[in-house]
């Protein structure tokens, strides 16, 4: 069995977000890039499946659409344990564009993992689009996944409970938190071996993005919070009625 894990290259989650002067692009100056946290969990689950006793998983390939500077992120995925990386050499213009690029080779895999969203643009779209383009099964919001012969047993979080599905391969699983406990820390040996693992660079196919960014806005700064003591109910009512004027 061959597994493909889609790897988003996203700013470190502690990054202070800034935009360019006309607010049409993210200012990537000085940003440290990481593997999208959901994708990192997906990779961890893929590794667990490969390492399980009697596993039929032969290879794990990671892929992204991005320029050369995203190779650090792919090499970290190789250091964690993926066998091969593929980079489509293009700017990830939008979800449809990215899915189109990935669709060229994603069909060769039995199981494709996509994170439920990326921690940068929260697009929530590449996985679903790619499954449609490939014409294969897809399940979203997957928080548990096991392989049983030719079936994949999938757990999903649903409102107020959970659901277990049996799905046949090939499958694209859009995974969320819970798919693996914690992302793996790459071992020294893995970091060393990442140097020698293949990282294939593909030229993009012709495709047009379906969306264009008009503008970005920062969220309004939160107003200062005021704490009212538990024995100050009168004060609270006064503030809500006369100052905030919501009563």
């Amino acid at each position, binding site marked *: 069995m061959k597994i493909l894990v889609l790897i988003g290259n996203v700013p470190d989650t502690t990054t202070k977000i800034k935009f360019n002067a006309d607010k049409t692009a993210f200012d990537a100056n000085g940003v440290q890039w990481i593997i999208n946290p959901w994708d990192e969990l997906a990779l961890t689950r893929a590794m667990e499946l490969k390492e399980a006793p009697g596993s039929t998983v032969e290879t794990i390939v990671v892929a992204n659409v991005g320029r050369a500077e995203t190779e650090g992120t792919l090499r970290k995925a190789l250091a964690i344990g993926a066998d091969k990386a593929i980079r489509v050499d293009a700017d990830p213009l939008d979800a449809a564009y990215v899915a189109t690029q990935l669709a060229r080779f994603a069909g060769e895999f039995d199981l494709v993992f996509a994170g439920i969203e990326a921690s940068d643009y929260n697009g929530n779209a590449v996985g679903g689009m790619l499954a449609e383009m490939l014409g294969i099964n897809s399940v979203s919001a997957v928080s548990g996944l096991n392989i049983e012969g030719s079936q994949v047993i999938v757990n999903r979080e649903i409102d107020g409970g959970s659901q277990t599905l049996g799905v046949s391969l090939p499958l694209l699983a859009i995974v969320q938190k819970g798919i693996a406990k914690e992302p793996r820390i790459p*071992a020294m040996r893995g*970091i060393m071996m990442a140097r020698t693992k293949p990282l294939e660079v593909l030229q993009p196919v012709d495709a047009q993005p379906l969306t264009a960014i008009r503008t970005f806005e920062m969220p309004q700064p939160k107003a200062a919070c005021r704490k009212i003591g538990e024995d100050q109910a009168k004060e609270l009512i006064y503030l809500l009625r006369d100052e905030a004027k919501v009563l």
Partner: protein
Amino acid sequence: MSNILTNQIIMNFELTEEQIMIQQAARDYAQRELIKDVIERDTKAEYPTHHIQALSSLGFMGMMVDPIYDGGGMDTVSYVLAMEELSKVDASVSVIVSVNNSLVCYGLQKYGNEEQKQKYLKPLARGEKIGAFLLSEPEAGSDATSQKTLAEDKGDYYLVNGTKNWITNAHSGSVYLLIAQTHPEKKHKGINVLIVDKDTPGISLGPHEDKMGMRSSDTHSVMFTDVKVPKANRIGEDGFGFKFAMQVLEAGRIGIASQALGLASGAMERAVAYAKERKAFGKFLFEHQAISFKLAEMAVKVENARNLCLKAAWLKDNGKPYGVASAMAKQYAADTAMEVTTEAVQIHGGYGYVKEYHVERLMREAKLTQIYEGTSEIQKIVISRDLLK
């Protein structure tokens, strides 16, 4: 002429992708795992068995050892980055890592013969065995030439008698690198270094030292009574021991310097975070110049310490003399650790004096970095001697 005075500057500060990966791996492990039980282990003086196992499987116990001897094959710059990250959270764990890496594994890899490397270096690099370095004695600390432990030449073995003090990993470790005197009349040129299995008959340990800091690492005195060590376990020629010890300590200093750096930067990060959340007199602490200037001074010192550590590591990685650079790094980083951790406690006020806020522990641990693997005063001797060359 002195390397300090010739002032050949190195100017490439960019880390490689691999170095960044190692730094992140160490940071992730420290911030995710070590932080969970560091206070409890400090309080109970409990050895971090499961952390050392985990760090071994990640490859941190022999990270600079050649992969042909099961090591990680990483450079010293990577080692400095990893040591800083681990030490920000837990200097007890990082001293275990440091002794194994930069004293024991380094010494064996550089000066051991092939047989010794196969037998001892491999399990040490994998972290299956832990090493200890036995130099200090009850009456020979900084004055390492006056070794009283005897290793008498008995033909095909050495007969060892004496006592070693303040030995990190004495209990948890099973491979000892022992410095002992064979030819007292030759003074330091009569000293040998022997690889000793801890389970050799005649070795006994003193009680666990109840230390001020680094309490989760094990420190004991080690007594040798008629201990037979095969000749094959001597590293290098007869009388090589003192030179071995000095060479290995030159490398080891980079490890402890980076530990001190981590204590300082860890305390600074906590002080900055606290100054951003705590208010006094209606303003955040960092809005008071008395506090913000302290933070600025900390930042400059930490940056200097980091640069000195990385420069010493770079020199070592590039085959250039690094003894003075590592002495400067150790002296400056250790003194910085003491100053910065003390100020971090001050910024935290009363909270800084209780265990929950971590900085008091960092302050207790910082003190040791000015003492072990060459006191700050010894480092100044090394530096000043170089000036007179």
